């Protein structure tokens, strides 16, 4: 197979367990199913793998209306009908009306590609079942032209899920599974460093304290995630906020500046305000 190993990139910090997962999936050419909180970089992972291993990337974004067949090919009967009425010569070859899907494109790639099947849980409950044979044998049959499409190289398949639907067992059995945990403070610092290399140390430390403080607040409906932290820091930098402004007397007694980037729900903001109010009263 391939000797290249994935160890993260200059833009993406991979934990050891994630590296093991990716490398095992690459070595054994098995699909890797990635789950985790929203905003922990599931989708980005595929891009980074493709970049670091220098492979072409095919992205297949799943919607609630997606069918497994869309990923293979579609037969455009309507344009064939139109062409036949216009007397176009193209009409005699059915191959002109077969539109390739992402999976076919990936199968046809000259080098081993990376295929991202993004948010598989958005699709219909039967969707994963319809892909079993394709993922297992990496081949499918085109009924219109009676040809068998086989992958030239087994693609590195990454599948992300947000857990909105349970995936069928038969499908899971064919995948490796990795759950991206929410990064701890140390990893988080690395991640922020990767994105904002010039960030002042004090500001970073203060921002992380505030961030993890917010995350630990009990009862939040939507906990802020990595991508929200990065947005927030970007805002802090854009507004040129000094680290002292974040400190306050006590993180529990002030609402963080520009909290709109971290709290995405009016109930959460309200809850936070109440907590701050209570803490202030208790502190007096």
């Amino acid at each position, binding site marked *: 197979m391939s000797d290249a190993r994935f160890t993260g990139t200059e833009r993406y910090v991979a934990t*050891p367990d994630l590296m093991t997962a990716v490398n095992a999936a690459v070595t054994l050419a098995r699909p890797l199913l990635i789950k985790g909180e929203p905003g922990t970089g599931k989708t980005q992972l595929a891009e980074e793998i493709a970049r670091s291993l220098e492979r072409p990337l095919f992205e297949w974004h799943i919607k609630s209306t997606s069918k497994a067949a869309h990923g293979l090919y579609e037969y455009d009967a309507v344009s064939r009908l139109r062409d036949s009425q216009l007397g176009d010569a193209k009409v005699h070859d059915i191959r002109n009306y077969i539109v390739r899907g992402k999976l076919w494109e990936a199968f046809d790639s000259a080098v081993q590609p990376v295929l991202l099947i993004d948010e598989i849980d958005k699709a219909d409950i039967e969707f994963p079942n319809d892909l079993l044979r394709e993922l297992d044998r990496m081949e499918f049959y085109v009924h219109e032209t009676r040809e068998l499409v086989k992958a030239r190289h087994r693609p590195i398949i990454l599948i992300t899920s947000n857990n909105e639907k349970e995936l069928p067992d038969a499908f899971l059995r064919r995948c*490796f599974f990795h759950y991206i945990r929410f990064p701890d403070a140390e990893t988080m610092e690395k991640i922020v460093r990767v994105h904002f290399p010039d960030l002042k140390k004090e500001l970073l430390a203060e921002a992380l304290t505030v961030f993890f403080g917010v995350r630990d607040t009990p009862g939040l409906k939507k906990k802020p995630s990595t991508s929200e932290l990065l947005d927030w820091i970007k805002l802090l930098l854009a507004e040129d906020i000094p680290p002292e402004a974040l400190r306050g007397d006590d993180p529990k007694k002030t609402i963080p500046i520009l909290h709109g980037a971290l709290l995405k729900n009016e109930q959460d903001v309200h809850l936070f305000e109440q907590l701050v109010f209570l803490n202030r009263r208790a502190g007096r």
Partner: protein
Amino acid sequence: MFVRFFTDLRARGVPVTLPEFLALLEALEARAAAQSPEEFYYLARLALVKDERHFDRFDRVFAEHFAGAEKLFEQLVATLPEDWLRQLAARELTADERARVEALGGWQKLMDTLRRRLAEQEGRHAGGSKWIGTGGTSPFGHGGFNPEGVRIGGAGGQRAAVKVWEARDYRNLDGDRELGTRNLKMALRRLRRFAREGAADELDLDATIDSTARNAGLLDIRMQPERRNAMKLLLLLDVGGSMDAHVKVCEELFSAARAEFKHLEYFYFHNFPYERLWKDNRRRFSVTTSTWSLLRTFNPDYRVLFVGDATMSPYEIQEPGGSVEHWNEESGRAWMERITAHFPRLAWLNPEPEDNWKWTPSVALTRELVAGRMFPLTLQGLDAAMRELKHPVASRAPA
């Protein structure tokens, strides 16, 4: 040696199958080298566990199993053939690292040091010795045979030395985790029953093609009603008193059910259903619905779902006048029997943990009244309740 691990996992309820186990062996073989324990742990988890809810169970089995097998691993390392090591090193070590190995006195010396260290290690931790100590004193912490980073005699240290699986970070993801609205919706979805009812406002493609063909090619459009979830659900919720502790989960269940069912009716009761139920808790004493009219209004094809902790004094069920709030002419038991007789498909969800049920006599009573159809308000419980509502076991009759 992993077969027992495999069977242990299955015994503990991690749904591992043979192909997955074979995949793990295949993965181990593909690497063709003894991994660092962490990497082995990650690899095993990757291949065998397909749901983060099972991570905690997996961690526990892993810890138990490999606590016993540690010695074995040490022996394995102590008797590693030198040629194999040297080959490995030639392939994996950089020139710089090889120089460092030479500086330590070459392979022979190195192996001796290593063996000595292993022996020390065994001596120091008598009995349940762990092969990864803290602080980087263990041979596997920095002197391991990890082909990616042979750091013999070096400082090492950064590469773990805490057993990841013993940290049990995934505890709160285990099966009985908090229910979120999303999960609840998924469980409730089991109860879907699609049927075509109402106005024909959707194109029936198959019928249209069929009748057009029969019509010698002249277009003949056929319509059909849209497919909708025809399941009817009646939700009866206990409020106040001991239920205050479960408000959040009930709220979530309620909002999930509202989103999932078109035909959803709900009523509240306090502790146990008597002759009156209500829809608005603020006006519970002024605007009420009599239970008789409930039984008349909703026909038996409604599924009934009770949500309550059934925790009260047994008198509140057994005796007329037992209610804590008002004088009830007839006992709660009589009302419950009427409800169960009218609605054959019924289940009771109890937010109290199942282990506590046996300590409360009123729970046992209620359970008997609903013919055993009481389920804990967890994902599995809800799932089982939905199954029960969909395909009730026919032989069951109210006790």
